[in-house]
């Protein structure tokens, strides 16, 4: 099987590859977004705890 055949997908390339691209995008978003949220939440909570301990 050649590479162009692989991308052609027997004429269904547009459907198959759009489905797989949307899938991939969603899979990436769902890992990146919670990872980002975890970092920002930890930062925010750590800051508020530090403030409370400094000015009792």
């Amino acid at each position, binding site marked *: *099987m050649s590479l162009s055949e*692989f991308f052609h*997908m*027997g*004429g*269904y*390339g547009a*459907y*198959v590859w*759009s*489905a*797989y691209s*949307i*899938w991939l995008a*969603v*899979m990436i*978003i*769902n*890992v990146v977004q*919670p*990872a980002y*949220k*975890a970092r920002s*939440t*930890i930062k925010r*909570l*750590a800051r*508020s*705890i530090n403030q409370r301990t400094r000015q009792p």
Partner: protein
Amino acid sequence: MFELNDMWTFFHKLGSPPYFYRISGMLIPWLGWICLGLLLAGLYGGLVLAPPDYQQGDSYRIIFIHVPSAWMSLFIYMVMAAAGAVGLIWRIKVAEAIAAASAPVGAWFTFLALVTGSLWGKPMWGTYWVWDARLTSELILLFLYLGVIGLYSAIEDRRTASRATAVLSLVGVVNIPIIHYSVEWWNTLHQGSTITKIGAPSIHLSMLLPLLIMALGFKLYYGMVLLMRSRVEVLERERGSAWVREVLQTQ
């Protein structure tokens, strides 16, 4: 007997927020790497090794993401409703966090099931969308997830929000058997089940194997993302407690 006891203590401990936070932090990278391996193997098997379908040609290859997404959309809903019920009955905070963290992931998989199905429907049925039983009930599932997400974010107190969304998700459970049996109860355009015919699945092993590998990869992916989301949720809910202060000070 000892093993059973150990298992119970394990589950009991999991209900403790600091223990859950620590264990989930250790599990996430493992789940991630195994999941990545499975997905790559499944993609290779499904897109390269598996032969074209004798009726649908190569368009059928959407099955390897469509069916696992649809399975996950139902599975995650059941997890969300069950965790919601546990939170409602025993007021276990970790269960509430798991229910809250499941909703967005479930909504995304429902979205994927609908979109990939639509992209498969166009070349095979000649249309992106029909208002048939399977598609409509899956769309209702998406609205249920969005309702749960909306309700959760509308109530400021997280514990009250958890109780309200648990009731909503439990009511929505009636939709799950409707989706599952829709292809049998109604005459629909959607094809019948390929896999669950016990004993004799109507699918060749070269197609079945990548599908099952993908499905397992999706499960682990959900496990990983669920833990990522719920441990932040737990941290946020417990922000006043001593263990969170300890965790944050070591950061």
